[in-house]
């Protein structure tokens, strides 16, 4: 039969030679291989103590952003909720009062902002949709929990730490995808 490709290798099956039938040389060879593996580098990453670095485009939990003075960026326009393919985002808007200028950047703000992390597929479309740079995806992922309810993240959990009151927390949260992508 003509072969279909020229890559065909014809193997001739021969009866085992005496050395092969002894098995022992092959066994010693195999044992040398397994022994050499004792000194090889281990592939394991001991998780809680060691962590793997994420890729620069890793998409983790959402963070609600503030500006330099600590005012929330979000205006509750709802574009992120519309963009969300998993319908994980709900929000309620409210109007900013006279004495609240230091809290919210614009006249309208999100009184309630919830993301259901069980529905979220971490696609990052909310980040792309946002015109105010108010939401971005961080490098952390949702920790495990016992109740479904605890996976619905409220505004308190999503907001980035205050840049003036909690400088360290803010800086830690800023070292993230947004910063890396800017580079």
């Amino acid at each position, binding site marked *: 039969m003509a072969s279909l490709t020229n890559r065909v290798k014809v193997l001739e099956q021969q009866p085992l030679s005496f050395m092969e039938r002894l098995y022992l040389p092959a066994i010693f060879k195999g*044992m040398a291989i397994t*022994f050499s*593996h004792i000194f090889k*580098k281990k592939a394991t990453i*001991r998780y809680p103590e060691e962590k793997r670095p994420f890729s620069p485009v890793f998409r983790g939990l959402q963070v609600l952003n503030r500006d330099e003075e600590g005012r929330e960026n979000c205006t509750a326009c709802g574009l992120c909720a519309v963009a969300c393919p998993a319908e994980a985002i709900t929000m309620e808007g409210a109007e900013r009062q006279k004495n609240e200028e230091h809290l919210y950047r614009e006249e309208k703000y999100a009184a309630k902002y919830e993301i259901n992390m069980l529905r979220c597929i971490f696609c990052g479309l909310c980040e792309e949709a946002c015109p105010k740079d108010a939401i971005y995806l961080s490098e952390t992922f949702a920790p495990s929990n016992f109740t479904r309810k605890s996976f619905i993240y409220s505004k308190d959990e999503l907001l980035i730490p205050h840049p003036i009151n909690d400088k360290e927390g803010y800086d830690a949260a800023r070292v993230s995808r947004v910063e890396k992508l800017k580079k």
Partner: protein
Amino acid sequence: MEMLQVDMMLILEKLLLIGGIITFSLVIAMYTTYAERKVAAVMQDRVGPNRAGPFGLLQPLADGLKLFFKEEIIPLTSNKLLFVMGPALSMVTAMLTSAVIPWGSSIHIFGREVSLQIADVNIGILYVFGVVSLGVYGIMIGGWSSNNKFSLIAAVRGASQIISYELAMGLSLIALLMMTGSLSMKTIVEQQMSGGWGGFLGWNVLYQPLGFLIFLICVFAECNRTPFDLPEAENELNFGYHQEYSSMKLGFYLFAEYVNMFISSAVVSTLFFGGYDIPFVNEATLALSWGDNIVAMLGFVSLFSKIAFFLFLFMWVRWTIPRFRYDQLMDLGWKKLIPLALANMIITAIVILWFNK
């Protein structure tokens, strides 16, 4: 009255020794499971258990505790008496062999000379054979009484495997016995110790390399270790003879395997590697300067390092070689090892006759 006094002391001494050796082999068996997992891990480029305690050293304790807390299930259709007897038998027979192994020369405590061997019977090797072949009953009874096809097949496999390999094992030892002229383990060790280079040249493995190889292969088969682990071939028979077992009864089976490994390693080291002989060191002259007790302890350490090597060999082979097919197993046992052992026996006999003439 005087006689009674001495006997009481002897009984006390032996009881202490028995207790010590049983505890020792159980602890060793426990940590062999840990070592097995570690060896498996490093040979597969993994880390192995490292969560329980420093370096995972408490892992065997955690495993044992887990087994104790598991529900104990005795299948309705099983033969209850035999079902309970199976693991007990395996464990007992695994431990029994340790009685005739000389764990060291004698030590002197309170003016008494205490031999580090429970019983120096003059038919030590015969005793080992007798007890080891009883071990198959544990597997056979366990598999049979489970009333389950897989277990039964596994039990039958185990029984036929052990019977086939026992023949070659016995034959390979006969050649050894023709050289030593004694069945007592202690005498065999002492003969090896009297060789040149501090005993090293007396080691039987140098005179009986083929016999040693055959014996080692048979030991692997007797312990149901890879490549001869057909009775518990997971992917063919689910779990083999201990499929229906749960809780500590399963634990006993698993544990008995490791105790068996330990004792078999001890037997191999004793028969072929000089037992408690320290190579390149003349124990008698060392004892004059350091005292008997220290030398006896060193001898025990020497024996133990030999045992540790063989335990490692067991694991090393397990994580290297795939399992034999059943017909290949029988082929190797009956058509290769037995004729080889017979040839080895005849050659040894001719050589002995030649030199004695």
